[in-house]
C-alpha cells in the first residue's frame, strides 16, 4: 500500500552540484556562513548549512587519518556530555571528536550524579555553565529536552538524541556516508525501514534526505509508522512515500537504511512477535537483490542481527555500518568546530 506523496520540496531545497574536489582550489571569501548557536534538529537546516557541515567533515576525516590525530582548534573549550540514556558509541564518538579537536571533555551520566537525586534538567544545565562548560552534548529520553536546555542555560547545545524526536548528528553522518557511497542524493530512492514512529534517527534522516532532494520511502508495520507521515494534510512534515510492503519498497532502491527494533515494542502490544516482524521486514540479501546493484545498507547501531537485519547483510559488502561510525566522529568534529568557530 503506497499512500500518495504530497508535493515535493521546492526547487531551492534541491542539492547543489557535487562538492568541490580535493584538488580544485577554492577562491577566497568562499564565505562558509554558519550562524547557529545550537544544533538541536535538522528540521530547518538549509541546504547550504548541511553542505558546510559535510565539507568540514571531509577535512576532519583527513585529520582522523593522520598518525597523530590531533589539532589545537578547540583548546580551551570545555565540552560536557550529559547522557540521561546509556549509550557507548554515541558518547564515545562525541568524546573522541572533542578530544581530537583539543577540547576538554567531561562525561556525565545520570547514574551516580546529583541528577539521580532529582536535580532537574534546568538545574543541571545551569550548574554546568557556572563551572565553565561551553558546549553541552545532551542525550535525553524526552523529546524537546535539548530545547529547554538551550533556552534555560548559557551553554551551546548539541542534541545527541532526544526521545523520539531528533538525532541530528546521526542524520548528518548518514547523509555523509550515503553521499560518499552513491554520489549526490537528489532524486535517489532511499528507503528507511523499521520502527519509524519511535525513531529519532529516522526523523533526522527524513529531514536531511528531503532537504537534499532525495526520494524518501518509509516502510514498516502500520503500528510503527507515525501519524500523518506521508499525508497531504501534514503541512509541516517533509514529503515522504509510505509503504508497508518491504519487497515493494526496496524495488530499485538506491540505498536502504535500517532501524533498530526495540524489545519494548512487543511488550507494548505494537507487534505480535519478533518472528513475524523479521519475516515481513528484515533487510536481507533476497530483498536487497531487488534494489539497485550495489545499493548499500546503513544501520545506526547497535544491530539486532537476525531481527531487523540479517547477519549476512550486516557484515556483507553492502554494509556501510563501519563507515558510519568513522564518519560519525568526523561529522561531530565538524559540528563542534562550527559551533565554536565564531564564539
Amino acid at each position, binding site marked *: 500500500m503506497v499512500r500518495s506523496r504530497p508535493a515535493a520540496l521546492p526547487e531551492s531545497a534541491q542539492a547543489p552540484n557535487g562538492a568541490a574536489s580535493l584538488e580544485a582550489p577554492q577562491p577566497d571569501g568562499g564565505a562558509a556562513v554558519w550562524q547557529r548557536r*545550537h544544533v*538541536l*534538529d535538522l*528540521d*530547518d537546516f538549509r541546504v547550504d548549512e548541511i553542505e558546510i557541515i559535510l565539507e568540514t567533515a571531509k577535512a576532519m576525516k583527513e585529520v582522523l587519518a593522520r598518525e597523530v590525530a590531533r589539532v589545537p582548534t578547540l583548546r580551551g573549550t570545555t565540552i560536557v556530555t550529559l547522557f540521561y540514556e546509556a549509550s557507548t558509541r554515541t558518547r564515545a564518538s562525541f568524546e573522541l571528536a572533542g578530544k581530537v579537536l583539543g577540547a576538554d571533555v567531561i562525561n556525565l551520566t545520570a547514574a551516580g550524579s546529583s541528577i539521580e537525586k532529582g536535580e*532537574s*534538567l*534546568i538545574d543541571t544545565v545551569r550548574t554546568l555553565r557556572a563551572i565553565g562548560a561551553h558546549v553541552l552534548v545532551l542525550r*535525553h529520553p*524526552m*523529546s*524537546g*529536552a535539548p*530545547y*529547554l536546555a*538551550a*533556552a*534555560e542555560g548559557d551553554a551551546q547545545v548539541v542534541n545527541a538524541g*532526544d*526521545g*523520539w*524526536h*531528533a538525532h541530528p548528528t546521526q542524520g548528518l553522518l548518514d547523509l555523509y556516508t550515503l553521499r560518499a557511497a552513491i554520489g549526490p542524493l537528489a532524486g535517489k530512492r532511499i528507503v528507511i525501514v523499521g520502527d519509524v*514512529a519511535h525513531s*529519532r534517527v529516522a*526523523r533526522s534522516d527524513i529531514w536531511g534526505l528531503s532537504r537534499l532532494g532525495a526520494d524518501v520511502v518509509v516502510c514498516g508495520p502500520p503500528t510503527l509508522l*507515525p*501519524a*500523518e*507521515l506521508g*499525508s497531504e*494534510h*501534514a*503541512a*509541516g*512534515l517533509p514529503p515522504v512515500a509510505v509503504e508497508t510492503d518491504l519487497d515493494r519498497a526496496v524495488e530499485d532502491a538506491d540505498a536502504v537504511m535500517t532501524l533498530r527494533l526495540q524489545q519494548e515494542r512487543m511488550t507494548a502490544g505494537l507487534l505480535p512477535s519478533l518472528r513475524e516482524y523479521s519475516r515481513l521486514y528484515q533487510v536481507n540479501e533476497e530483498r536487497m537483490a531487488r534494489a539497485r546493484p550495489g545499493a548499500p545498507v546503513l544501520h545506526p547501531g547497535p544491530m539486532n542481527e537476525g531481527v531487523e537485519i540479517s547477519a549476512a547483510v550486516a557484515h556483507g559488502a553492502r554494509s556501510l555500518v563501519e563507515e558510519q561510525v568513522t564518519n560519525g566522529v568526523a561529522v561531530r568534529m565538524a559540528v563542534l568546530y562550527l559551533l565554536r568557530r565564531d564564539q
Partner: protein
Amino acid sequence: MSDILIRGGRVLDPANGVDLARGSVRVRDGRIAAVGADLPANGARVIDAEGLLVCPGFVDLHSHLREPGFEYKETIASGTLAAARGGFTTVCAMPNTEPPLDSKAAVDFVLGRAAAEGVVRVLPIGCVTKGRAGKALAELAELAAAGCVGFSDDGSPVGDAAIMRRALEYAKIVDLPVIDHCEDPALAGGVMHEGWVSTRLGLRGIPAASEESAIARDLALAAQTGAHVHIAHISTAGGVALVRAARGAGLRVSAEVTPHHLALDHETVMGPSRGSGRGLAYDTGAKMYPPLRRAEDVEACVAGLANGTIDAVATDHAPHAVQEKLCEFDAAAFGMVGLETAFGLGLRAVATGALSLERLIEALTIGPVRALHLDRRLPGLGTLTVGAAADLVLLDPEREWTVDADALASKGKNTPLIGRTLRGRVVATLYGGELIHEERP
C-alpha cells in the same frame, strides 16, 4: 446604599432577548432594578459604559480553584479574583482537590473559604466516585444537599462504563448531571494531539478517537438511563457531531467547550517561533487535556457552539506552579489558566465570522446556566432580569492588550498566550451590585 446606574453602553442580555444600542441598567440593593433605553440617574452613582458592552456576569461551569490541597497553584481567593478580572461572577469549582470534594465536610470547607475569601460566587461540583478513584459511587445526595450543582471526576474520566451507568442512574435522585471528562484510559498516555505536529515533535499523541469513543459511550449510557450527561471540554469534530446527533434524537445531553479550543490548534505547541526557522519551542503552556487539536476541530467546535450543539463556554481554568511547567514536555503538568483570557480568545472565534458576538455572550451567561439548570437554585442567574442578583460585566471588545504573566491575578501563569496580544478586555465587574473590579485605560 444608593442605586447604581450603568449608562451609555450596549446592553446585551441574551436570556431576555435584550440588545439595546445605548441602554442603562439600574441596580438597587444588590439586585437588578431596571433595564431600559434611557433611565434617569435620580441620585444614583453613575458608571459610564460608553463604547462598552454591558452583559450579565459570566458563569464558568469548569474551573480548578485548587483549594484545599494545592494552594501553591491557586487558592479560592486568587482564583476568584482572576475570575472577576475575567468577567466571571459565578465559578463552578471542580472537585479534584486534596481531599477531593466527595464528602459534605470537604464541600463545606470550600463554601466556607469562598464566603470568607472569595470575590465571586463559587458553586461546588462534587465527585462522582469516592476519592475520584472510579470504583465506588460517592454519596451524591449528600453532596447535592451540601450545595453541589453537578458531579464529576474531572481530571480523570469515569473509566468504568458500569460505574458511569450507575452514576447516571443514581444522579437522577437529585436530578443533577454527571459531567464527564471524556477520555478512554486505554488510549491515554499521550501528551498532545496525535497528528502531524506530534509526529514532527516526536511526542506521544492522544488520538481523537479517545475522546470520541468516550463520548459515544456516555451518550449511549445517557440514552439507556434517561439521565443527563454533560460533556466537559469537548474538542473533536467527531465528538461535536456525536453530540449533535444525540441532541437531535432527544437525549438529555449538554456540552461545554473551552475558549482555547475555539481559537488555538496543535501548532501552538511548536511555539511562537514556528515557521520563522528559529527552532521549535515545545511550549508546555500549550500542554493540556484535552489537547489542542487540528484547525478542522477548532472550526467544528466554533460551528457547534454557533448552532447550539454546544451550550456553553467553560474555561477549564487549570493553574500550575512554575516548576510544573518549566521542564521537559513529557514531564509537564496538563492545563492552562483561562479565566482572564476567556473573553479575548472567544472574540478570536467571533473574528473568524463563524460565531456571533451575541452567541458568544449567550454561551458565557445563560447558556451555562441552562446547561446545568443552575437557575433552579439561583433564579435569574446569567441574566439581567429585574430582581436577579446584580452580577454584571462591562466589556471593551476593541481594546487590545498583551498577556503579561505578572499582571495576571491568578497564581498560575501557565498559558501559551504569554506575550501574545488579545483583543477584548473586561473593564468592570459587578457582583451582587458591588463593583469588584474596574480597569479603565
